[in-house]
């Protein structure tokens, strides 16, 4: 088991004074079979006039934030502590069944699970199931080979075919942009993986969260130097949702903290909203710290 303390701060600096700001944040971690949330809190500066958190259609925690105090700096901070225990995927018998068998077994799921799965089978706003995506997936699809091999092969290919390049794409980039530029970030890789998994007939989610990182050898880990992360999860009947990370070419293990999941990025956008001001530039900075802690040992806050 791993326990992490996560701090995620999003800061907006405005050139001219903002009179009011209305937005929503999807930053509080959700519980899942692999993750228990020990504590989670969202703070906003300046103090919001109104803030409520609800459970959205996918089970994520979404907070509505209304700030009406004039401000030039808006800071949204999510802090949480979570415990993570993930199974070793390759030892689950269900993933060794063929892709065709995994797909066939989807229809045998309980009605509620089947309905839940259907939501993640179809194209969504950021994940088109077009020829480009289908053709890319095709090279990994072998119907009578274990479904585990398919997922691993797909994850490997995306990792090696595209370079990690944060200058290649933006948050609004499409899968087509990723193909055109040959590079992108975790969001783009995850979208492509989700599209390929869906076009193979398997339900796939886009997952947002964090990954524990390590500093270069011999250097101390810097506070706030981590980043938010995204990957894909695919439903294998009998094995549950299997999390795979094409950006790092691996299956998710105890180092992966889940915030939220949805059909694609648009369902789990960390912070979005509108501001009322006289214009001017907005400067955005994000700081993330994923800190491993030893359970039952009080941490200084």
């Amino acid at each position, binding site marked *: 088991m791993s326990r992490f303390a996560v701090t995620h701060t999003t800061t907006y600096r405005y050139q001219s004074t903002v009179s009011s700001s*209305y937005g929503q944040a999807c930053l509080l971690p959700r519980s899942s079979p692999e993750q228990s949330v020990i504590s989670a809190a969202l703070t906003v500066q300046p103090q919001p006039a109104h803030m*409520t958190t609800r459970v959205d259609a996918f089970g994520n925690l979404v907070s*509505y934030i209304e700030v009406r105090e004039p401000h030039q700096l808006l800071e949204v901070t999510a802090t949480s502590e979570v415990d993570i225990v993930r199974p070793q995927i390759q030892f689950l018998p269900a993933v060794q069944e063929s892709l065709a068998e995994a797909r066939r077994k989807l229809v045998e799921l309980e009605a509620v699970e089947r309905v839940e799965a259907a939501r993640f089978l179809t194209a969504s706003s950021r994940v088109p199931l077009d020829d480009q995506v289908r053709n890319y997936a095709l090279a990994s699809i072998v119907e009578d080979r274990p479904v585990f091999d398919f997922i691993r092969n797909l994850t490997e290919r995306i990792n090696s075919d595209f370079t990690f390049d944060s200058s290649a794409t933006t948050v609004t980039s499409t899968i087509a942009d990723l193909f055109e530029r040959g590079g992108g970030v975790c969001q783009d890789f995850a979208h492509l993986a989700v599209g390929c998994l869906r076009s193979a007939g398997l339900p796939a989610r886009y997952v947002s969260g964090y990954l524990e990182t390590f500093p270069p050898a011999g250097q101390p880990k810097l506070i706030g130097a981590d980043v938010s992360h995204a990957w894909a999860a695919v439903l294998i009947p009998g094995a549950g949702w299997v999390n795979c990370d094409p950006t790092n070419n691996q299956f998710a293990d105890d180092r992966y903290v889940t915030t939220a999941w949805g059909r694609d990025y648009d369902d789990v956008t960390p912070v979005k909203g509108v501001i*009322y001001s006289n214009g001017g530039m907005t400067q955005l900075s994000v700081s993330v710290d994923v800190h491993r802690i030893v359970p039952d040992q009080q941490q200084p806050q």
Partner: protein
Amino acid sequence: MKSDWTGYSSITFDELVDGDGKPRTGNEAVFQRLADLGPALVERQRAAEAEIRSMGITFTLYTEGSSIDRAWPIDVIPRIITASEWNTISGGLIQRLKALNMFIEDVYNEQNVVNDGILPAQWLEDSANFRTECCGVHPAGGVWAHISGSDLVRDATGQMMVLEDNLRVPSGVSYMLENRQISKRVFADLFRDLDIHPLDNYTEELGKMLSKLSPRDDVEPVIALLTPGIFNSAYYEHGMLATQIGAHLVEGSDLQVVDNIVYMKTVRGLVRVDVIYRRVDDLFLDPAVFRSDSTLGAAGLMAAWRAGNVALANAPGAGVADDKVLYSYVPDFIRYYLNEEPTLPNVPTWRCMEPDHRQHVLANLDSLVCKPANESGGKGVTIGNRATEEELDHLRTEIETDPRNWIAQPILSLSTSPTLCDGIIAPRHIDLRPFVLSSDEPFVSVGGLTRVALREGSLIVNSSQGGGSKDTWIVDESVRPDRLLEHRQPGQQQVQRSGNGQNPS
């Protein structure tokens, strides 16, 4: 001078006369009076057009960049429906809307309709108007589509059926009301002598229904009609309805959310709004939730609605069943939710994503109407027997590429109604859009907006594509023409119909 009518005949079911040119049962009195007018009918038409200009009734065509307002085209010859048939139709609409509202409430909450296998989950997820942002919300009374306008057509056999449901922001009701104002002026004599059911109680019922939605029961509710503004094609209607129901006509910039409560900005400061009759599409309602570039809505509106601090009519997400694939399941929804057989049938519909349906459609493109699942106003519709070979090839590719987005229906020979075309009475195809107000006391407009395709042979009645309109008369068939004189003797007290909208049974 009845010669104008002697040559009148329709190739399909005509609303006024039967195959022998005789008035249908219940239409005799109106037919007689229209025929008696002879050439004077044309004068009435001119009078109606003059009224439209002086009243300033306009609508907007987006394709005409320069002049945005056009005079509303009305044909003066009324469309007649007998009171007994209307009873059946309005009962069928109430049944349909009850099931549709139960469906919408269900898909945003328990989703039993999907879990029980009535509707495949994927078709729901693929509906362009299914808004996950609305999941978990329970609007008061389980009503999502408070105001709807379903389009009805009659086929060659005379069967009335539902062509589509409009559960988002249906428009046209003001034209229904204005058409009546005009025909009352130009046919004052017929309104005096015949028993034509009044329809102006619609706005009263609308105001009552909206007031009941107010989350505050200790104060007089403040109702606002949210319009996208003067460039919207239905702006005329927004202004007219706001005036008639005593609502404030507001644009998004007039609203402000403070502490999760919606206010409008007035010269006397902020005034709390209880009910918003919104004529702005879902995706523009709240830039903090939907399109962040929208200036037509108010930031924070969705959170205030979700918290129950303001009522939105129609509720966001109500358009989920406007998807034409989901439309094809409405008869199943009526059976599932109400355990009743539908009174008003659907037009038979093939769903292209089902392989056997698709096969049939692709093999019979030239004899079907193909429609995109999520468009409105007749956009993207291809009528097989009027399309070129190229258009059909293009359609075939589109259906094969994205079958979920296509449905097909038989080419209906819509019923006709006599229409004045350049001074000659000729049959023109029509449809009917009645308006339904859903609440614990549902109400159906007495009649509806009859739209008419003014071009000969055309089946496209949409006013955005050059269609016109007619007043719709619900006429009591018990009044026989030969009884008219004794029925309305001068000085005799006229029977007043109460304005509660209940049809006589």
